[in-house]
């Protein structure tokens, strides 16, 4: 099937999570993404469990690396060496977009800033993803994605109502959000270039990417001087609204009633029509006030039931409800299966695993991972030989001098996070 970005080529020079996400989104959409990676792949055991396999190449079996880099072409290249930098610039000349997410100082030191890249290709689109931006008081602050969640207000606003402490949303929320926004922005810049021939520099700071998601809370602070507080699983006006324990271990059903009608339907489905007439619950304002009592009534029903069965009963009655699925259950859910959300990707050293895809299906085009993450050094001949036209002896000379590497040189710091 056709993919929307066929013919687009991207040079990715990233670490951590946000940059690789931007790269794999463009790769899923059909771009050829060349990932320039360090000539070491770190010490893989540090980043988490390894998939069993060939004992001499553990670095090819890091699940997180392989998830974040599916669909890419890999080139281990030491850009700090003059020959490495030269190759980077020659690759830039063949690409439409360069993605990077190092700290502002790092690229300065390597002389690989926008102005340098523009000399190699005048209409290049460069997307930079610093944590806080290339200007401002926090320019040189270090942070990973979760640290940005703290500074956007998101951690303060997320939490249990009674815990009195901030909470963190998921694992790498900030990075996935910023990666998607960077991919979108790069495509918008590509649109402009197709019409005008003009390239440009894009700064997609992680913090800036996240602030829109708390936009209403920032306006409450502006309008009303309020710092905001976590609502837990409650809603500003819907009631009931929360998760309720079901039969089994750590099994929960989410229920939300956006209207009186939905609440009446819920009471019917629970076999408790009298609750809909109860003065504590009959109208929204009273119901909102008496949520703790109402939650008890609902939980008494859900506790006796399997979460999926409870969802079916409530949804048939027109009540918004769904089980809280976990990472394993997602693979077995009928809706995820019917839509083909997880795409099986075969990795030669890791086997076949279903990889989470983008959240949409086109009617005609495809937008799914096409190949596994690159094994270390796998694409040296393709990138240096086929794309750049280097002779075999030249490639061998680069290998023996350590500018490129077919095997990780030094076990260093972890590369995935």
């Amino acid at each position, binding site marked *: 099937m056709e993919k929307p970005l066929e013919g687009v080529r991207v040079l990715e020079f990233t670490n951590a999570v946000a940059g690789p996400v931007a790269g794999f989104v463009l790769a899923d959409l059909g771009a050829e993404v060349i990932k320039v990676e360090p000539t070491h792949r770190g010490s893989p055991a540090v980043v988490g469990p390894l998939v069993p396999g060939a004992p001499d190449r553990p670095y090819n079996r890091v699940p997180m690396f392989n998830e974040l880099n599916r669909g890419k072409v890999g080139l281990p290249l030491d850009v700090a060496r003059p020959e490495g930098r030269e190759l980077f610039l020659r690759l830039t000349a063949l690409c439409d977009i360069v993605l990077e997410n190092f700290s502002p100082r790092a690229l300065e030191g390597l002389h690989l800033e926008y102005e340098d890249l523009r000399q190699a290709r005048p209409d290049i689109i460069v997307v930079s993803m610093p944590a806080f931006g290339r200007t401002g008081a926090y320019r040189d602050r270090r942070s990973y994605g979760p640290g940005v969640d703290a500074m956007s207000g998101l951690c303060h606003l997320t939490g249990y109502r009674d815990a009195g402490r901030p909470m963190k949303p998921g*694992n790498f929320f900030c990075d996935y959000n910023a990666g998607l926004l960077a991919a979108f922005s790069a495509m918008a810049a590509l649109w402009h270039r197709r019409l005008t021939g003009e390239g440009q520099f894009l700064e997609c700071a992680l913090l800036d990417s996240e602030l829109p998601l708390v936009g209403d809370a920032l306006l409450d602070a502006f309008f009303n001087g309020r710092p905001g507080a976590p609502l837990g699983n409650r809603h500003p006006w819907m009631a009931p609204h929360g998760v309720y324990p079901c039969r089994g271990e750590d099994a929960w059903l989410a229920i939300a009633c956006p209207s009186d009608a939905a609440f009446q339907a819920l009471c019917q489905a629970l076999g408790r029509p009298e609750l809909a007439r109860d003065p504590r619950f009959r109208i929204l304002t009273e119901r909102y006030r008496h949520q703790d009592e109402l939650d008890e009534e609902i939980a008494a029903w859900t506790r006796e039931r399997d979460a999926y069965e409870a969802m079916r009963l409530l949804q048939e009655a027109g009540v918004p409800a*769904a089980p*809280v699925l976990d990472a394993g259950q997602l693979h077995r859910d009928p809706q995820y299966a019917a839509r083909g959300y997880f795409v099986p990707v075969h990795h030669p050293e890791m086997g076949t695993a279903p990889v*989470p895809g983008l959240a949409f299906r086109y009617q005609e085009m495809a937008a799914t991972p096409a190949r596994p993450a690159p094994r270390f050094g796998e694409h040296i001949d393709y990138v240096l030989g086929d794309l750049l036209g280097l002779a075999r002896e030249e490639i061998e000379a680069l290998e023996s001098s350590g500018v490129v590497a077919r095997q990780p040189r030094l076990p260093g710091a972890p590369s995935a996070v």
Partner: protein
Amino acid sequence: MAGPLNGLRVLEVATTVAGAYCGRLLAGMGADVLKVEPPEGDPLRRYGPFPGDVPHPEKSGLFLHLNQAKRGVTLEVGSPSGRDLLGRLLERADALVHDLPPQRAEALGLTPEELRRRHPRLVAAVVTYFGSRGPYARYQGTELVAEALSGYMSITGEPDREPLKPHGFLAEYQAGLQAAVAVMAGLLAREARGAGDVADVSVAEAATFLMGGPPVLAYLFGQVWKRNGTRLIGMGDRHPYPSTLRPCRDGWVHAHSNNRHPDLLAALVGDPWLASPQVLEAMTAHADEIDARLDAWLADKSKWEAVELAQELRLPFTEVLDPLEVLEDRHGHHRTRGTFVEVEHPVAGRVRQLGAPVKLSATPWQVGRAPLLGEHNEQVFCGELGLPREELVRLRQTGIV
């Protein structure tokens, strides 16, 4: 200066955050986004927050935030006359985003299949909570319910408590962003293919996407990683630590190791145990003890002091800020960068709103205000579609616009 999508025409029929955020992203990039609201107004006009807690359809914070730099018309798209006008607007549009429930989309001929068939050059994104096909296509959704199904709640919250919904509309925002990605890629492909395409976007899947690795780990290892408080999940015992939120004298900080130099934590806290080989070998395995030593160091420091000292040592610590503190901007970071802009609105007055989430050097992000209810009816229906004025009056009298 114009944005990169200057000249593109986008139609937005949104009733949730998802469709509106997709439209906002396209408008920010300079597309001419026309928001089609029902005559009584977008439901988000009722959402708030409102200045002084006085509800007013032109002063809803969420609406003002999501609809900057768009134009707006009102149209009862359920009526035959409204449908006809919507069809004429669609003929002139490059792209459409809508987030109508599947039943309503069917009634209006706006399902992905119908749109594809009837508007061959249109690029569209149709957003629903669970996707417009599959066994749950007709199920009722909300933000909470979509987040539950997505798996995201299973990785948010304390391990010994109920799963937790993150603040606000994270899943709907992500669906809007995914829709914008789908539309943008579809537009880029349109010239080469000579055809548009329609993306069927699922809010639940957009939140699953945010989870990253855990579903893959669950498949590979048969082990399900779940919520872990404020610590990362899925990391082995040997992964550097901390990555967590810890209390200090006046609030909380996000404490993170320097993953390339995990021993720097010992230098910060002045505690050699933290740099001892058995700790550095397996920092995550020592997380509780590391927290305790860190807490002792943090106890007498403000979050600002603690972060400054840590950052001086290249340790990625940050302050946990509330929205008021984000606005106050103690170190002037946002002031220097123009993160916030003052937007003048004829009814809501001067509103401090977010500026560019992405800074583009040649074609800047577009700021602007949200449209008033029906503000561009005359401009669009008479000026652009060529409707005689008396017809617009008639449509207004019958409640269609």
